Every structure is written in structure tokens, then in C-alpha cells.
């Protein structure tokens, strides 16, 4: 039996029945990482001794007969989430040697259950990118096709799971960074409602948009991880008093909205076909399909690429060569700032800091930033209106399947356009999932399901039923 191919549920059963131990499981993953990751580059760091030590503790807990779903299950963590005592680089030269002084709340929760942290995964630097290519430590490759990107920004988190180098992983999603790479790698990726999961210990990018969420092999696993990490946290003032409650949902009579604006120009016709086929399937199962309109959709991408860089330019000001990481020698304080940031940040991060500083600067604030906030209000209202008539919304996750490495290297705007279907969800603070819906020449295509605030249970319930309807292999 190849232990690395198991789902969380299967591995949990195996541990429960004594078929193998957590140490066996952990060793199997470590061996897989050793043999496979040279060609994928999913991990930035792997702490073997730490993993084995955790596995031994997990086995002790399992031996008592009282243990949780994630006890002894090996996982991978996006390297923007702090794990105490481990390096946390955010895939940036500026944090190359930074060691996390404390655990993020989500890590504390995983550790409480005694899940096994195998290592920290690659990403676009500071989570800025849709392809994974903006990492200062090399791009992550797509396990389905090594000439293509894994998708970003949670590139290593998806590639580690898709390449059977972790049973599940955590990513973060500011404008699609969980859902997009999940769709590129044929996995399930959940971006929870803003506030459903604590962000304490996540290196901030766009604070009004960021969310941590699970990436897994199937919907049930995503649900197990989400349930483990969600809830109020005193260390995060934006976390909500939320408890996950499983929902049994009948497809019959359920109303699903399909935004007409999402199927116009720019979508790959093969992707469109796969999404429409998925819609057809639920219709046959008794779901009522309603065409809806999100009239401000055309503004979403511009709105996002003003708000996210503006917040980033403020959040990243803290990397000044004084408090953490890289510090370039200089004669005066200003030069320390200038040289440290100039040397430490990569091209995409610089581009976003510049864009954000520009749109917030005197003379341009009203035309860009304020206008973007107004547009955000419109987008939020669009969804609120749509959800008066429907329970859930179906959409593509990405207009295209995984692109070739280097394909958009000289065209940042083309890269941004890949996020066209995912950013609105963050703008409105809604939950969204991407589940595998089909393939184009072997490349996975994801279906996105969007729900009302804090209705993850509905999203997961229908996603789980769809898994059985869609022939994804």
C-alpha cells in the first residue's frame, strides 16, 4: 500500500485500526519528498527530525484510543504562516533567515490535534502572484505537467498535495491564491469567509482580503481541516464567533445562480464547456439553475488590483531592515531602508508596492483608491442582491488551465487577468471553493462554488455531492 496516496479519512482509519503508525506515515511522506521534490520544488524547508518527533507524540496519543481526525496526519504549511522555531521566508530574500518566534493560531490548532507538520511550502513572494513563479527560491512545477506552473500564490501547498508529498496543506487566499492553484492541480481548495479563520501569524498582504484555508484531495478532507482551524481567536480582532456545523443538503429545489457576465470573452472555450457540463449535471439532479447578473463584475479586477497593492504597500513597510531579516549596511537610517528594500524585494513585490504607493499618494487617492472602495461597495451589493434569489453561485475558478512556465513573464496584466473569477469573492468577503470538474489534455480544470457569508457548510455539502457526479480522473 502506498501510504502517501491516502486521504485524511483513510489515513485516520488506518491509524485507528493499527494498520500503520504515524511514524510509518510520516516516513513515507519524507521519502516521497526526498525522491520527488527535486523536480517539483514544492517545499522551501523540511524538518525531518521535527516531523518524526511529532509523529512519535501522535502515536502515543493514538495508543490511548482518544484522538482526533488530524492526529498523526502529515501536512504542509505555506511559508507565509508562522511555525514556531522554523524559518518563515514568505519566499522572499528579505526574510531568508527569519525564524518564527511563535505559532500562528491555525498551527496551534493543528498541533493541538497533533497533526504532523512536514515542512514549509513555496509561494509567490509575499503571496503576490497567480503562477508561483514570483518565488525568490524558484518556481514550483505542476505535478501534472512539469513544463507548467502549479498556480499561485499557494504553489507549493498545492504541489505538495498533488504530488503526494503531504496529505493536506494550508494556504492563504487574498485574491484566489488557494482556489486558483487548486484548480490548476486538480485539488479541492477552500477560501473561507473573511473572519472564519484566524489570521494571527499569517504574514499580512492585503488585510481586508486575506484568509487562510485548506487544500486537500477531496471535499471531505477540506471539511475536516476547515473545521479544525476555524473559529474566534482573541489574537485576531477580525475573527468571527463562528462554529462549523455540518449540513445535509438536498439538491432538489436548491437554487444555483450562474452569472451571465462570467461567460463572455476571455474564457477558454474548453473550460467553459467543462463548467457548463457540471451545471448540466446538477440540473439533472434536481437543482434549479438561475441566470443571475453581477453587473459590476467588469470592475472587479481593477478594484482588486488597487485595493490589494494599496494594503500591501502599507503592510510591507515593516520590512525596513531594522526589525527583521535582511539589513543592508548604510551610513544613515534612510539608506538602510532604501537599500534593504531595494535588495530584498523581488520584481512583483516592488511593482505592487509602487502601485499601492501611487494610488494612495496625494493627488491620485480620489481617482484610484477611493474609487476602488466605492466599486467594492457595488460588488458587495451585487452579491447581496444575487443571494436574495439563489443559495449558491457556480463559476469557473480560472479562465484557463495551468499556463506554461514563463508564459506571462513579461506581461503582468495578463497574469493578473487569470484572477478575474476569484477576486470578487475576496472583495465581498465571501467563502468560495474550487473543486476538480474535468480536464483539458490532462490538465485539471476547477469549478468554483461561492456561498453566502459563513455558509461554508452549504458549499461543502453540495461540493461533496458533486464529487460523485463529476467524472474527474
Amino acid at each position, binding site marked *: 500500500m502506498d501510504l502517501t496516496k491516502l486521504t485524511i479519512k483513510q489515513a485516520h482509519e488506518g491509524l485507528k485500526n493499527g494498520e500503520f503508525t504515524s511514524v510509518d506515515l510520516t516516513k513515507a511522506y519524507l521519502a516521497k519528498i526526498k525522491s520527488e521534490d527535486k523536480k517539483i520544488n514544492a517545499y522551501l524547508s523540511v524538518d525531518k527530525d521535527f516531523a518524526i518527533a511529532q509523529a512519535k507524540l501522535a502515536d502515543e496519543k493514538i495508543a490511548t484510543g482518544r484522538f482526533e481526525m488530524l492526529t498523526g496526519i502529515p501536512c504542509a504549511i505555506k511559508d507565509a504562516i508562522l511555525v514556531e522555531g522554523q524559518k518563515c521566508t514568505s519566499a522572499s530574500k528579505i526574510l531568508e533567515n*527569519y*525564524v518564527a*518566534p*511563535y505559532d500562528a493560531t491555525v498551527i496551534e490548532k493543528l498541533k493541538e490535534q497533533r497533526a504532523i507538520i512536514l515542512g514549509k511550502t513555496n509561494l509567490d513572494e509575499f503571496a503576490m502572484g497567480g503562477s508561483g513563479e514570483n518565488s525568490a527560491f524558484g518556481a514550483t512545477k505542476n505535478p501534472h505537467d512539469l513544463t507548467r506552473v502549479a498556480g499561485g500564490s499557494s504553489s507549493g501547498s498545492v504541489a505538495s498535495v498533488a504530488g503526494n508529498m503531504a496529505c493536506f496543506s494550508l494556504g492563504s487566499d487574498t485574491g484566489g491564491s488557494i482556489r486558483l492553484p487548486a484548480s490548476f492541480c486538480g485539488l479541492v481548495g477552500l477560501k473561507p469567509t*473573511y*473572519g472564519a479563520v484566524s489570521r494571527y501569524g499569517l504574514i499580512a498582504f492585503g488585510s*481586508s482580503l486575506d484568509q487562510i484555508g485548506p487544500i486537500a484531495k477531496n471535499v471531505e478532507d477540506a471539511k475536516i481541516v476547515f473545521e479544525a482551524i476555524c473559529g474566534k481567536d*482573541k489574537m485576531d*480582532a*477580525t*475573527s*468571527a464567533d463562528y462554529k462549523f456545523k455540518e449540513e445535509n443538503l438536498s439538491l432538489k429545489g436548491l437554487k444555483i445562480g450562474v452569472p451571465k457576465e462570467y461567460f463572455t470573452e476571455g474564457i477558454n472555450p474548453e473550460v467553459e464547456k467543462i463548467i457548463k457540463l457540471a451545471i448540466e449535471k446538477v440540473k439533472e439532479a434536481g437543482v434549479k439553475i438561475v441566470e443571475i447578473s453581477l453587473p459590476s463584475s467588469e*470592475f472587479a479586477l*481593477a*478594484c482588486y*488590483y*488597487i485595493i490589494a497593492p494599496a494594503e500591501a*504597500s502599507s503592510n510591507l*513597510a515593516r520590512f*525596513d*531592515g*531594522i*526589525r*527583521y*531579516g*535582511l*539589513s543592508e549596511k*548604510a551610513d*544613515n*537610517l*534612510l539608506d*538602510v531602508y*532604501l537599500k534593504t*528594500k*531595494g*535588495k530584498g*524585494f523581488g*520584481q512583483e513585490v*516592488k*511593482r505592487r*508596492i*509602487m*502601485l499601492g*504607493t*501611487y*494610488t494612495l*499618494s496625494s493627488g491620485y487617492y480620489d481617482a*484610484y483608491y477611493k*474609487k476602488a472602495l*466605492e*466599486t*467594492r*461597495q*457595488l460588488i*458587495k*451589493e451585487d452579491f447581496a442582491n444575487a443571494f436574495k434569489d439563489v443559495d449558491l453561485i457556480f463559476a469557473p475558478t480560472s479562465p484557463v488551465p495551468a499556463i506554461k512556465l514563463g508564459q506571462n513573464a513579461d506581461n*503582468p*496584466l495578463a497574469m*493578473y487577468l487569470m484572477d478575474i473569477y476569484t477576486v470578487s469573492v475576496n472583495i465581498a*468577503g465571501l467563502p468560495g471553493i474550487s473543486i476538480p470538474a474535468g480536464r483539458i489534455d490532462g490538465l485539471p480544470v476547477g469549478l468554483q462554488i461561492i456561498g453566502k457569508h459563513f455558509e461554508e457548510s452549504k458549499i461543502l455539502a453540495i461540493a461533496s455531492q458533486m464529487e460523485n457526479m463529476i467524472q474527474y480522473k
Partner: protein
Amino acid sequence: MISKEEVKHIAKLARLELTEKEIEKLQKDMSVILDYFDLLQKAPKPKKMEGIYKDLSSTRKDEAISDYDIKDKLIGQAPDKKDGYIKVKSILQ
């Protein structure tokens, strides 16, 4: 098209040192992206503006909520430190 001077001015505000090559590239990239942002001028004005997360209070009581002390670990990450403090270059001559 934004000017080279504008790029330099913004870089100064952002405390970012850029090479000549980077300035040229940013001038081109930012112009294309800012042109795209002009799309928003077409967007109507919303009837009302409400906070995006009005239900999630961003204020809290002004009190220490941490029951453990990680001061030394935090300061330990600073590139330059002395006697439990972070050292900063003098700013007054």
C-alpha cells in the same frame, strides 16, 4: 504614460531603491496597469457606503491579552540589538 520622474518620486515615498533598469521597466508596467484602472471611471457611484466588514469589530479593549512573553524572541530576530533593545541608526545629528 507616467514619467520617469513620477516613478522616482513614488519610489522615494515607498523607501525603495531602484536601478535605472527597474525604473524603466516600472514606468512601462505601471503605465499599462494604471491605464487598465481607468475602467473604474465608468463605474457608477454607490448610493451608500457602508463598512465592508461592519459586523466584525476592529476595535478591542486596550489591554494586554497575551499570557506569555515572547519579547526576547521578537527582539532576537532584529539584525542589530543591544541589552534587550533593537538598535536603530541615529536620526538626529
